[in-house]
């Protein structure tokens, strides 16, 4: 029966769109309460340590401090998040800390500076314990014990193993067995609004009101009441905007509970908003996994059996780890038709940030592993990868080894449609070099009983006095438009205009219980509750009107917002009239997933009413010279049942797909000693707008009878297939399979060079200093690093603490120089401030005085002075880019400097600031007590740590590369710099401006005034070539070139590298190879081939050598094109 829908299937803008585009929606960050305090959390500096003593008294005595708390203050003890079996974590540490960044104590004070000062006064004495950071290490004999749970070996939080069907027989009878190990690290959800809480305790009533970024107010409230020892009814979560969820604000209640206890103790409202770094080091990350997947295949291609052995890295405590155990076993047993299936999964403790949850809950990566194998099998069998998938696709009526009974199933249609739309057949027949196609499928329960509470939802509908309807739900709209979708459901069921519905989400006092926004459950479960509520609402109106008019309720109808007696035009009332006549009333609709819970030990059982499917095809192009992947096109086709709101669903799909692109190509938390070091939105490679490819979406609408109006769940669908499809496309393009994520350009280029060769000669002996460096590096692991680390901690200059500097604003250049003379090393000059202020937060700079020179007109502007261009050091990058003088006389400046950062930063940052910025090494910025902080007594962390971004040439004590794009550009242009102090001016050649370790030669009392760029002789070819994640990102490698031709022959060449050495290194061997030659192909090959002469790469960055060669080649090829004939 075709039903005509009024609201379902409509492209509706989200109900809160106006509030969002005008900035009026109040997020937790924006909530203020009278007398609100600022809360801060003291975090563990150690990965594993015993707390010997904790002294809060000095902090309590500090001015403005209203509450100081520690673990013992939580009377309820540990969180019970995943049930008592998994309880292992206190809101604030008790006795032991088990990861760096763990919450140890917390302070609430009148102001942020007061809270900071108080935090610094908390004295904690630790006894450091051995720590372990990998699952393999944690499972080894004699590993440090992080947790020992009853009935399990040490460091195991959960062990789940089962076999469904005769797995052993399947493998014994297989014609083909493929086996592979796939692993990946943790990605971070990156909600743009960090986790935050505002808690307001009223001592008179004992009521605690809470505004918090949480996807599940129901669970957060329960947990708060539990750990604080409050009655559930006294805790009320209120509604607020949520700046992103993706699992990152799922059940786990830190820092919420901490803010709550601070408020209870202070008897004042308290806000805690994590800063971006805290969000990285102690937020809720995805879980790292290692998965060994084996598949048994019959000669005709049938999958006889699949077996997965896997470790999930739980981090130091259990939050959502068990859901990850479940995600892997579900895909192992259910994706494609498989005869028998088994698994052995261990959730393993390590001394790292506890895993939380992230979109897909581990499914994207296990699907990647399985789909990689499906490709491998198809290749073995000599079959087309798409056709093969169709032959093994799940079908309606199937029962999987895990007991799932598949009802509606659009997988075949999804695969077929995705193949057609990407042009699979045609492109497979005519493959292009370095282009590749990939396809992947997925299956997702829609949705099962995940919680001990079951899986239920309530939606309330309240007719208010003014005739408007308030829809109440305890789910939390993190941006998914779920509030709009629930209103659509209710409006459809009631047959009213959707404009008369308001939605109140999250509010635990005024909206009924619901398990929250996770596991793609809201559309499916809460949606059904909204329909039920709508039906009850209409029944209630009819009942009341029947009594009013003294007729049989069956005689009363309610259509299009008007109630009346059938066939009687006199007795009709609209909503406002009904509200006025019958008073406000409220009904609550409930929906339960009436399914048995799957066996919690093995996951066995048909536990979801429906299963969603999808297929995603990707076409990529790999640049074999740099390893960069360009996504040509993505086609996603999904069976999500009926589409309720296409505009919202498309947005969900786009967002999930781009998150999947991030996961497969670039995103990864990089750890050092258990601590994430890439804790900024630059060093953590979150996808930006340049990474958005062409995405085409289609939906196979199967209208599932179990779903609300035929819908199935969908939120996690898109990311689940994206990772696998792109990885398979990369394998297709390169012929190389990658078994770790993310598949970065570096990994791809490394693999291509290893296979195809030749690796460009580094010839480290050409730089004699390398001998000394190599010897030191050889001694690093066992001798030098431990010794320097110990020594540095004892005698090195400590990493600077953040203090509030005084700001001076000179009104003239001479005043500025006098200030510099007076304050010297205690002062920092601030121009744009875009590096300085960030560095101050990170502990890179700690000036007592800031001298703000941005107002000095002497330092701004561009002019021609004789035969050079004078650029004020305080001129913004944007001003240089837009100056006609730059474009007309020095095209390299305009073309090259446009690679710096982002529009906003170029509008603020100055040329002098770019040249003088500090290094971006993630160890230095963590900050680790390295050579740059502590001096010669401290080690360089890049020698043993993750050195993928570091220098390959010229690095000694410090391996941080020069990332100022202006530096190599000005070297190529032969610029000179003018600096001054009160005693006078001096001129410095750009090549003399940096010391070998990369610091500038400016004295503490010197100010950089101008940059002089010579205008003659004119280099006809000027170009800046850079390789970075995105245009404005810091360079992995860059080359600036200025070439003067004499006829077709190179008369003079100045080339300089960025991103590969501690300073902008002049490419002398390349220049020498070019002088006097025409830029013919062999000359270019020869010149580019010596670009890395004298390099001595670190463990992880040898790939920068072929990368540098590639961009030098590219640059010279462009020069050849532009050379005079």
């Amino acid at each position, binding site marked *: 029966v075709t039903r005509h829908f009024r609201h379902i299937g409509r*492209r509706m803008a989200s109900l809160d769109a106006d509030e969002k585009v005008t900035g009026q929606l109040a997020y937790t960050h924006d909530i203020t309460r009278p007398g609100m305090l600022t809360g801060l959390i003291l975090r563990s500096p150690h990965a594993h340590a015993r707390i010997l003593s904790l002294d809060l008294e000095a902090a309590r005595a500090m001015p403005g401090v209203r509450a100081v708390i520690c673990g013992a203050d939580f009377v309820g003890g540990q969180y019970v998040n995943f049930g008592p079996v998994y309880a292992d974590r206190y809101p604030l540490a008790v006795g032991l800390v088990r990861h760096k960044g763990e919450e140890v104590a917390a302070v609430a004070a009148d102001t942020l500076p007061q809270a900071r000062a108080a935090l610094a006064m908390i004295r904690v004495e630790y006894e450091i314990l051995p720590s372990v950071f990998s699952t393999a290490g944690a499972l080894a004999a004699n590993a440090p014990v992080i947790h020992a749970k009853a009935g399990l070996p040490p460091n195991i939080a959960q062990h789940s193993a089962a076999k469904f069907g005769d797995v052993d027989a399947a493998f014994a009878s297989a014609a083909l067995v493929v086996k592979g190990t796939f692993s990946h690290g943790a990605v971070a959800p990156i909600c*743009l609004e960090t986790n935050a809480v505002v808690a307001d305790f009223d001592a008179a009533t004992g009521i605690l009101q809470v505004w918090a970024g949480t996807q599940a107010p129901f669970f957060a409230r329960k947990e708060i009441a539990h750990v604080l020892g409050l009655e559930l009814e006294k805790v009320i979560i209120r509604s607020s905007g949520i*700046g992103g969820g993706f699992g990152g604000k799922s059940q786990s209640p830190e820092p919420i509970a901490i803010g709550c206890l601070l408020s209870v103790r202070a008897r004042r409202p308290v806000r805690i908003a994590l*800063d971006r770094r805290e969000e990285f080091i102690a937020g809720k990350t995805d879980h790292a996994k290692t998965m060994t997947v084996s598949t048994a295949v019959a000669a005709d291609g049938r999958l006889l059996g699949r077996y997965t052995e896997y470790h999930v890295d739980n981090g130091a405590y259990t939050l959502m780890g068990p859901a990850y155990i479940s995600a892997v076993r579900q895909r192992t047993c259910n994706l494609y038709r498989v005869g028998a299936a088994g698994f052995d999964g261990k959730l393993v403790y390590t001394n790292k940030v506890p895993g939380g949850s992230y979109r897909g809950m581990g499914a994207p990566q296990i699907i990647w592993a399985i789909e990689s194998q499906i490709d491998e099998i198809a290749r073995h069998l000599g079959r087309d990868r798409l056709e093969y998938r169709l032959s093994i696709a799940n079908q309606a009526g199937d029962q999987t080894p895990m007991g799932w009974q598949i009802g509606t199933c659009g997988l075949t249609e999804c695969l077929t449609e995705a193949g057609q739309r990407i042009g699979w057949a045609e492109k497979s027949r005519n493959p292009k070099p370095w282009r590749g196609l990939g396809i992947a499928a997925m299956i997702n329960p829609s949705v099962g009983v995940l919680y001990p509470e079951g899986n239920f939802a309530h939606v309330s509908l309240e007719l208010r006095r003014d005739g408007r309807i308030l829809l109440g739900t305890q789910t939390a709209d993190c941006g998914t438009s779920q509030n709009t979708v629930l209103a659509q459901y209710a409006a459809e069921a009631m047959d009213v205009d959707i404009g008369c519905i308001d939605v109140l989400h999250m509010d635990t006092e005024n909206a009924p219980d619901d398990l929250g926004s996770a596991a793609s459950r809201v559309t499916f479960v809460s949606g059904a509750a909204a329909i039920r509520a709508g039906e009850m609402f209409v029944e209630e109106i009819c009942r009341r009107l029947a009594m009013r008019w003294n007729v049989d309720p069956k005689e009363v109808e309610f259509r299009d917002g008007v109630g009346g007696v059938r066939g009687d035009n006199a007795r009709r009332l609209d909503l406002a009239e009904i509200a006025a006549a019958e008073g406000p009333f409220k009904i609550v609709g409930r929906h339960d997933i009436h399914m048995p819970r799957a066996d919690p030990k093995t996951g066995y059982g048909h536990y979801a009413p429906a299963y969603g499917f999808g297929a995603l095809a990707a076409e990529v192009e790999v640049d074999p010279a740099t390893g960069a992947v360009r996504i040509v096109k993505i086609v996603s086709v999904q069976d999500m049942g009926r589409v309720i709101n296409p505009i919202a669903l498309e*947005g969900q799909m*786009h967002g999930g797909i781009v998150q999947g692109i991030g996961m497969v190509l670039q995103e990864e938390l990089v750890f050092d000693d258990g601590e994430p070091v890439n804790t900024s939105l630059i060093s953590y490679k979150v996808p930006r707008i340049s990474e*958005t490819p062409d*995405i085409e979406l289609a939906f196979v609408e199967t209208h599932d009878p179990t779903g609300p109006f035929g819908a199935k769940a969908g939120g996690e669908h898109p990311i689940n297939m994206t990772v696998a499809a792109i990885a398979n496309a990369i394998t297709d393009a390169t012929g190389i399979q990658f078994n770790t994520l993310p598949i970065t350009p570096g990994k791809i280029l490394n693999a291509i060079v290893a296979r195809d060769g030749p690796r460009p000669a580094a010839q480290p002996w050409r730089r004699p200093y390398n001998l000394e460096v190599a010897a030191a590096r050889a001694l690093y692991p066992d001798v030098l690093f431990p010794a320097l680390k110990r020594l540095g901690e004892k005698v090195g200059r400590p990493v600077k603490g953040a203090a509030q500097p005084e700001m001076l604003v000179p009104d003239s250049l001479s005043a500025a120089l006098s200030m510099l003379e007076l304050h010297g090393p205690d002062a920092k000059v601030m121009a744009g401030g875009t590096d300085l202020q960030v560095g101050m937060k990170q502990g890179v700079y700690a000036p007592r005085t800031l001298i703000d020179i941005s107002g000095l007109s002497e330092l701004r502007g561009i002019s021609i002075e004789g035969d050079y261009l004078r650029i004020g050091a305080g001129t913004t990058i944007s001003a240089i880019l837009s100056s006609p003088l730059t474009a007309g006389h020095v095209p390299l400046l305009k073309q090259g400097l446009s690679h710096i950062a982002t*529009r*906003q930063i170029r509008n603020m940052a100055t040329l002098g600031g770019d040249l003088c910025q500090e290094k971006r090494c993630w160890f230095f910025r963590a900050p680790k007590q390295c050579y740059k902080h502590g001096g010669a007594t401290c080690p360089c962390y890049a020698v043993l740590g993750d050195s993928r971004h570091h220098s390959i040439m010229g690095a000694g004590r410090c391996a941080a590369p020069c990332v100022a794009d202006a530096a190599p550009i000005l070297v190529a242009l032969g610029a000179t710099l003018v600096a001054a102090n009160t005693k006078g001016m001096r001129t410095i050649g750009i090549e003399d401006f940096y010391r070998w370790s990369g610091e500038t030669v400016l004295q503490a009392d010197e100010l950089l005034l101008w940059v002089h760029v010579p205008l003659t002789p004119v280099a006809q070819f000027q170009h800046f070539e850079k390789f970075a994640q995105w245009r404005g990102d810091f360079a992995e490698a860059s080359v600036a070139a200025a070439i003067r031709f004499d006829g077709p022959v190179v008369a003079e060449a100045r080339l300089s590298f960025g991103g590969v050495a501690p300073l902008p290194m002049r490419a002398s061997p390349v220049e020498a190879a070019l002088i006097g030659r025409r830029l013919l192909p062999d000359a270019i090959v020869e010149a580019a081939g010596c670009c890395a002469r004298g390099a001595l790469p670190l463990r992880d960055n040898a790939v920068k050598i072929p990368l540098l060669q590639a961009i030098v080649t590219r640059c010279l090829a462009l020069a050849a094109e532009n050379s005079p004939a």
Partner: protein
Amino acid sequence: LKSLASEIHGVQDASTLGIASINGAEVVLYGDPGRPVAFFLREELGLRGTKIGCGSGECGACTILVDGVAVCSCLLPLHRVRNASILTIEGMASEGLLHPIQTALKEHGAFQCGFCMPGMVMSIHALLQDNPTPSEQDIRDALQGNVCRCSGYVKLLEAVRSLCGGATS
């Protein structure tokens, strides 16, 4: 908003840093001259539409226009906006009517959680002010500094293209 700060806080004698025009209203600037403008807007003036996503100039949620130029207000010291004309998200819609940029973003469903929106609106405004017919590359370059984790930027790009009559790549 007229002279909001001076009304609330009275005359800020010693700590007065001068005045600025914020969304067309004259406002007294006061307090620590090094305090980032974003915090002054949010905490002193209650203009909480300007969001702080990172505090380090890396996400663009705090983008405002100072004398027509898009900057990260989380890195802009307060004293630098003395006598400047500032436009924040609160100055974009007038008398309850959405700005055409806001309408386009809404109609295209260009956002989800909405936290990036204020900064995104301001960056788009700065772009179109300087260049009413941007190329695809111009659009992507102008919005490179604005991180959105929800949308994948697809509908955002569609919305911006619709504002300039469909850009060519």
